[in-house]
């Protein structure tokens, strides 16, 4: 009896997981925050926790008037425009010469059979032109990524809907990562950023995952420099007692793919500033 019931349950769960396509997932994701935080317009979540508290928002807006990432952003432009040893530059590897393209990343590369993030594309371009790849967490790569986000401000996030079996598998793996409990403290991303969003963890307000990928890289006062999205993933894994994964690991790229797809339709506003 119990066996039968759990089989039925498994079948039911299985079918919902198969039938709910990415686009339906995205609608439900948005509805969740619409219902949960009904006083906050969905578009406002690109400002993270600062969409949720007027006092904190005011301080943050003041900080953004003289953004602490300004210097790194300028350096990012120089690095972007610099010539490689072979005479080419980053612009040669991107559509539109790399101007205003942030909203299309990450995407699923059907030929390579994997998710390509903006940071990965930058390093692959460098390697294709005989340059060394740059470290993924902060520094020059974050600066270049910041410049490319800056030229894309206001563009609407537009990650193509996964269609092929391989793309859907990558998307599903990112989704599973997001909803799975990890670490000794037993938290899923969704435990904090959905179940507890808008509430306080000690003194910190928990942001919505809608809009989580819109504003990277971020200058965090704690980091005292620009850092990439995968650096934040690592921190959010570490703080629950899980061993963080490598930046740009397949799992983190799939997670970014899922999360960014959820934010389709919101505006790019990177680079950002956070506490």
């Amino acid at each position, binding site marked *: 009896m119990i066996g039968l019931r759990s089989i039925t349950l498994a079948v039911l769960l299985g079918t919902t997981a198969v039938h709910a396509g990415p686009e339906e997932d995205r609608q439900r994701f948005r509805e969740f925050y619409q219902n949960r935080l009904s006083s906050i317009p969905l578009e406002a979540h690109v400002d993270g926790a600062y969409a949720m508290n007027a006092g904190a928002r005011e301080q943050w807006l003041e900080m953004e008037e003289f953004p602490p990432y300004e210097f790194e952003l300028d350096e990012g432009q120089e690095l972007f425009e610099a010539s490689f040893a072979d005479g080419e530059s980053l612009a040669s590897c991107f559509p539109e010469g790399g101007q205003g393209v942030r909203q299309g990343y990450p995407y699923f590369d059907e030929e390579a059979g994997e998710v390509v993030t903006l940071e990965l594309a930058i390093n692959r371009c460098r390697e294709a032109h005989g340059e060394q790849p740059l470290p993924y967490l902060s520094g020059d790569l974050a600066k270049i990524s910041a410049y490319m986000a800056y030229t894309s401000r206001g563009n609407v996030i537009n990650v193509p809907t996964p269609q092929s079996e391989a793309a859907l598998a990558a998307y599903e793996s990112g989704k599973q990562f997001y909803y799975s409990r990890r670490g000794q403290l037993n938290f899923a991303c969704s435990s904090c950023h959905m179940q507890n969003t808008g509430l306080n963890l000690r003194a910190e307000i928990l942001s919505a995952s809608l809009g989580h990928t819109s504003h990277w890289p971020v200058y965090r006062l704690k980091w005292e420099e620009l850092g990439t999205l995968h650096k934040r993933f690592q921190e959010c894994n570490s703080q629950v007692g*899980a061993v963080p994964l490598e930046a740009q690991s397949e799992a983190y790229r799939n997670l970014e793919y899922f999360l960014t797809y959820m934010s389709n339709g919101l505006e790019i506003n990177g680079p950002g500033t956070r506490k």
Partner: protein
Amino acid sequence: MNGPVRWYSAALMALLLLAGCGGDSTPAQESTQQAPAAGEPAEDTVSTNPEADFPAALAAARERHQQAMDLEFAWSRAETLIESAENAAAAGDFAGALEMAIQAEKFAALSIEQATTEAEAWQARVP
């Protein structure tokens, strides 16, 4: 019945109680002489030769932790305990090292259990 003897023993018991409850017991020092409590898993049995038992315990902990790493569900407590165990062994504290290796393996096993449960459980959280 001799009254005073009864009361003296009551006072003595009170003193014993005070001694027993007041200070923190130091299980690490006492455990070598104590039999494992009933119901504790067999691996908690105190080793009579920790130096000889340590390498196998460390290998077992490393293997479990690596399994958890491969599943992308590893816990940092297991990782730090393995490091601490190695350091303790290098410093000659094999009893401590063995205890930490055993504990590390337990955490690694818990993390694998978490991976197994979550393989299904995550779906209940999707809105």
